[in-house]
């Protein structure tokens, strides 16, 4: 296998021990240069997070109460759902991930950022792209290609803006001061280089219509899987590899596992995903390859999780102290559960039952909101106080954010997977008429509405807290609110 031979090279070229500590003045310089752009990323991301989850709540309600807001074209289910999901992906997860990556890369490379104006312009450009794309869907120009629903012209500003934002990460990397590379940098670079390629080729082939429809199935499945497997998941894994050692002071448990985790993910992620059309009109060998890849996916997942678990082990105090670590811990569990659920979904006979129910969407949402987003929140909890220059203002908001998210996500996953299973069993029995299948699914869909409401509460409390921080930063003379909390106490 390829990666075996390169193990020694990786070890030679990389420094897997803790991210190198920087001098305090360098740190301050970096933070000052990144303050405005990174906070701008966070602000726009939080706007889309809120909008996306409000729309998701509405659509989940529409599914059980179809007459809710019905008969209005731009509020119909089929238009709102893609807007909501794309807002969560392109509006929230990607900019938040980029903002965190920029900061991490700058810190790891010991370099502050210059020419931030271009970066700021690119962020705005990206957000205009997301906005126009969403508007396009609402006005009836959606493409109905999964995760690429924006009208094809909206992909141009998005693509250019991403290049303009991503190029900073690459420039910072090339100019790095400590020459050795930490595992986080590997993951972040992988994700940031993968996205333009994923996005450009899929858009060219699918929304610009240069490939015959008979060939679109595998490309759709490839994009939907890899936007997570090769982009968002590597970003999240990289962020975790940075944050845990910084928060707990523990060194990486095993170099070997870290390398194994990275390369086996890279090897397998690109080949998974065809299970989305298992039994459908795509070549059988593709499905078989993906079934195998999905099974083997346990290797990279086990490798990283083992590494993380060993680093968190025995850190009960840090877990209590640091909100970032708590979000990470939940994210890791969500990643593990999502992998198991994916594994079950890849077993052909089980897939026959689970396919086309809420199950698969449940796993996608668990990955996006339970794993990636929780890690992004962790990143924000760690980074934002350093940019603001003061610590989080209100511990109870953080608790609300965390616990509503935990309960909401758990309820969502249960309702979608268990409900999906029951719906699937009903669908599989042709003696049950379709309308009767709906009544099997309905109670679970109600639970899903409740889950979305809880998640919305969770996000609202974070956005409120973030807003308070912003207000405090611009009005330094005002007194802080009553409850205060100091996550900075334990770390530098």
């Amino acid at each position, binding site marked *: 296998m390829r990666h075996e031979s390169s193990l020694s090279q990786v070890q030679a070229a990389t420094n897997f021990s803790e991210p190198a500590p920087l001098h305090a003045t360098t740190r301050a310089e970096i933070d000052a240069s990144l303050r405005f752009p990174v906070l701008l990323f966070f602000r726009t991301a939080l706007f889309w997070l809120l909008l996306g989850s409000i729309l998701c709540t509405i659509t989940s309600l529409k599914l059980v109460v179809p007459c809710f807001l019905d008969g209005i074209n731009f509020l119909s289910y089929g238009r709102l759902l893609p807007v909501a999901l794309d807002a969560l992906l392109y509006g929230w997860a990607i900019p938040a991930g980029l903002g965190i990556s920029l900061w991490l890369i700058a810190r790891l490379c010991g370099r502050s950022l210059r020419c931030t104006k271009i970066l700021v312009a690119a962020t705005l450009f990206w957000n205009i792209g997301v906005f126009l794309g969403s508007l396009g869907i609402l006005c009836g120009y959606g493409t*109905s290609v999964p995760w690429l629903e924006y009208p094809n012209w909206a992909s141009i500003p998005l693509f250019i803006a991403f290049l303009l934002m991503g190029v900073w990460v690459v420039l910072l990397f090339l100019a790095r001061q400590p020459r050795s590379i930490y595992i986080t940098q590997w993951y972040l670079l992988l994700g940031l280089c993968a996205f333009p390629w994923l996005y450009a080729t899929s858009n060219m082939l699918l929304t610009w219509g240069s490939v015959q429809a008979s060939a679109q199935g595998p*490309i759709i499945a490839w994009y939907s899987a890899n936007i997570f497997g090769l982009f968002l998941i590597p970003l999240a894994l990289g962020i975790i590899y940075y944050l845990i050692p910084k928060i707990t002071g523990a060194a990486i448990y095993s170099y070997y596992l870290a390398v194994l985790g990275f390369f086996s993910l890279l090897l397998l992620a*690109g080949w998974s995903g065809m299970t989305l059309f298992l039994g459908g009109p795509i070549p059988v060998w593709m499905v078989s390859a993906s079934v195998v890849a999905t099974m083997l996916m346990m290797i990279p997942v086990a490798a990283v999780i083992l590494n993380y678990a060993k680093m968190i082990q025995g850190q009960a105090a840090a877990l209590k102290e640091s909100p970032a670590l708590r979000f990470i811990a939940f994210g890791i569990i969500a990643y593990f559960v999502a992998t198991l659920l994916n594994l079950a979904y890849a077993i052909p006979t089980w897939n026959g039952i689970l396919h086309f129910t809420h199950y698969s969407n449940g796993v996608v949402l668990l990955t996006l909101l339970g794993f990636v987003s929780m890690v992004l929140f962790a990143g924000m909890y760690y980074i934002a106080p350093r940019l603001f220059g003061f610590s989080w203002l209100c511990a109870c908001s953080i608790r609300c954010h965390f616990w509503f998210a935990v309960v909401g996500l758990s309820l969502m996953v249960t309702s979608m997977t268990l409900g999906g299973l029951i719906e699937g069993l009903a669908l599989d029995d042709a003696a049950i008429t379709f309308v009767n299948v709906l009544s099997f699914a309905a109670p679970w869909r109600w639970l899903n509405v409740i889950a979305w409401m809880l998640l919305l509460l969770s996000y609202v409390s974070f956005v409120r807290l973030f807003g308070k921080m912003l207000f405090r930063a611009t009005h330094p003379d005002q007194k802080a609110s009553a409850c205060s909390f100091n996550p900075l106490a334990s770390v530098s």
Partner: protein
Amino acid sequence: MNRLRPLFITIALLFFAGWLGFVAYSYLQLGRLAPQVESDGSLPPLQSGSAIRGAKVYAAEGCMTCHSQQVRQTSVTPSDIDRNWGKRPSVARDYLRDQVAFLGTSRIGPDLSNVGVRFTDPIWYYRHLYEPTAVVPGSNMPAYRYLFKMQKIQGQPSEEAIVLTGPHAPKEGYEVVPTEEAKDLVAYLLSRKQDYTLPEVPPVPEK
């Protein structure tokens, strides 16, 4: 940097392997499938202009968020065929004439790959799109009333007018008729038929 180059190349190769396997292969192989030429035309049959425009409406309205268009292999599950959603599994060539393959990933509503075989009367579709619950009690499909217009009856009532009772019925002297979009959409739905045979997929024996 020199030490890193082989590493970067390895990473790029691993990354592109999946792309070559799935994307490039699809483009080169599935993208070049040709219609099956028969003595009386080619399969799958060509679509009318109205149906092609209707596919755009189908995309714009996001019908795909609830409806799939694929009948699965019987080795995975026989239930698609048992539910009368098709007589045989779908294959890549069935989508040859479409602009976008609306394969779909969820079935909140029934599969539509052969809906044109099941329902052949356009008026049925109009009625259903206008008010699904009036046609299928208990349905949770959204109502697409905005694809219809209410107009004053001039002389003879229009042939396409839908007969309505209940809360959404038109006032005295008015009628509800489909817009061009609704007509195109229904033309598209009526064209959803995989009722021909292709050599790569033998018909499933009747039980």
